[in-house]
């Protein structure tokens, strides 16, 4: 219980862990997928695996937007940075993510105007203060960040700021879950649902998972106790043979979601017919594009984007890890060619990717232990 001991009420955590042990059937193996990259990071950071019974296996899902972004999209976005009048802006998470010609940070080192912003509205402000430049914002994220991008474009249009555009890579979580469930080698029992995405979309979009697939899902917060309580709720459902959508994170997630955020997304975005995900391939209706009514603020409609496609290296087994068929360390490249400093596959790219999280917390720990001088 590495970090759990530091937490506010270790007693409650111990009691919840006891409840989990009471609920598990020792003759059954449980495979629970946490969809959100934030949960993956927290599971490793808190050392939650150490307090779960060994027959509960946590499978790390596709919810890290940096990880699932195809390399070709980074190349496409950076192709605009070569233009001397363009300021390329992106969140800090994107800056070290490699394209075939290097990361955004490496492009900056070569003299291109590449800047970190912490909010899309800061990129818009940069456009206002640099009227002789074009500011392009490289937008990524699930439904948590898409509403902020949408609102930023609505403000750009309302204020008539024309030297600003958004390169849209926003993706939606539901089709990714569907793709994983449709996969023939998928073996999952239940889902720990994403917390912050659900703040926007609410709980209804998950209802097909329980109706069509008979898999329980519990929307969960990010504290250790939140995740343990969510596992208790899932185990109770599995024990009773029922499958329903439950909301453990009620203090933040309303059942109906955030309607203002959904309206902003509907005003600015529409679904793409299909989009490529690193590790999962093409998934239909899984990403957002900018509507024609906002074409002037769409980098892809406004500029000539090359449309680069870079296939994932064949040796990287990201897809199998995403579906829970392989553990990160079972991939042939893990810890050798593919490490966080030099990611080959998608899941090593960001600290919220399951391979990077596993490498940083489990693999490094194992190496340190094996190198320790015997006492």
């Amino acid at each position: 219980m590495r970090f759990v001991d530091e937490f506010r009420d270790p007693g409650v955590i111990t009691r919840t862990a006891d409840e989990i042990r009471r609920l598990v059937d020792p003759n059954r193996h449980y495979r629970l997928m946490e969809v959100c990259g934030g949960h993956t990071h927290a599971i490793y950071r808190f050392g939650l695996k150490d307090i779960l019974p060994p027959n509960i296996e946590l499978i790390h899902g596709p919810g890290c937007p940096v990880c699932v972004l195809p390399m070709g999209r980074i190349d496409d976005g950076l192709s605009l940075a070569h233009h001397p009048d363009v300021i390329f802006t992106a969140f800090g998470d994107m800056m070290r993510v490699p394209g075939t010609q290097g990361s955004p940070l490496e492009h900056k080192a070569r003299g291109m105007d590449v800047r970190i912003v912490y909010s899309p509205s800061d990129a818009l402000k940069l456009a206002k203060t640099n009227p002789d430049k074009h500011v392009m914002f490289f937008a990524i994220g699930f439904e948590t960040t898409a509403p902020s991008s949408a609102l930023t474009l609505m403000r750009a249009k309302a204020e008539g700021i024309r030297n600003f555009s958004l390169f849209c890579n926003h993706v939606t979580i539901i089709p990714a879950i569907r793709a994983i469930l449709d996969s023939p080698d998928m073996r999952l029992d239940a889902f720990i649902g994403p917390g912050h995405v659900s703040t926007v979309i609410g709980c209804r979009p998950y209802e097909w998972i329980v109706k069509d697939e008979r898999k329980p899902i519990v929307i969960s917060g990010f504290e250790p106790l939140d995740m343990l309580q969510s596992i208790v709720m899932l185990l109770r459902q599995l024990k009773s043979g029922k499958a329903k959508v439950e909301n453990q994170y009620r203090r933040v997630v309303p059942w109906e979601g955030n309607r203002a955020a959904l309206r902003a997304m509907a005003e600015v975005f529409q679904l793409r017919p299909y989009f490529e995900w690193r590790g999962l391939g093409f998934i239909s209706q899984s990403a957002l594009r900018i509507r024609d009514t906002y074409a002037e603020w769409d980098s892809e409609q406004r500029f000539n984007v090359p449309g680069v496609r870079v296939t994932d290296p064949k040796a990287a087994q990201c897809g199998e890890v995403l579906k829970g068929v392989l553990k990160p360390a079972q991939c042939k490249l893990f810890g050798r060619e593919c490490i966080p400093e030099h990611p080959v596959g998608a899941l090593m790219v960001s600290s919220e990717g399951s391979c990077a999280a596993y490498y940083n917390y489990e693999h490094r720990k194992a190496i340190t232990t094996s190198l320790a001088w015997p006492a």
Partner: protein
Amino acid sequence: MCLAIPGKIVELFPGVPHLASVEVAGVRRKVDLGLLQDDPPTSGDWVLIHVGFAMSKISEQDALEQMQTLMILGENEQAMQEVRGYGLDDADDHNVS
């Protein structure tokens, strides 16, 4: 980008209803309230902030616990860096580079 940062609304601007000053661990920055327009927060309310936009209203207790979670996750410094980086305040243009 995926951080949810708790902040307290300390000032509203009648002329610009979609903006508010929030305070996060002693640092004051402007954030956008547009995504809470159906249930606008008032001064003293706590909100969860994603990439410079208030996304949901939360209780003070939840806000304190969220800050503690960020600390245990080792993400509190990153969160403060993000908050300090929000550039909607005119005096903070240099933070955007």
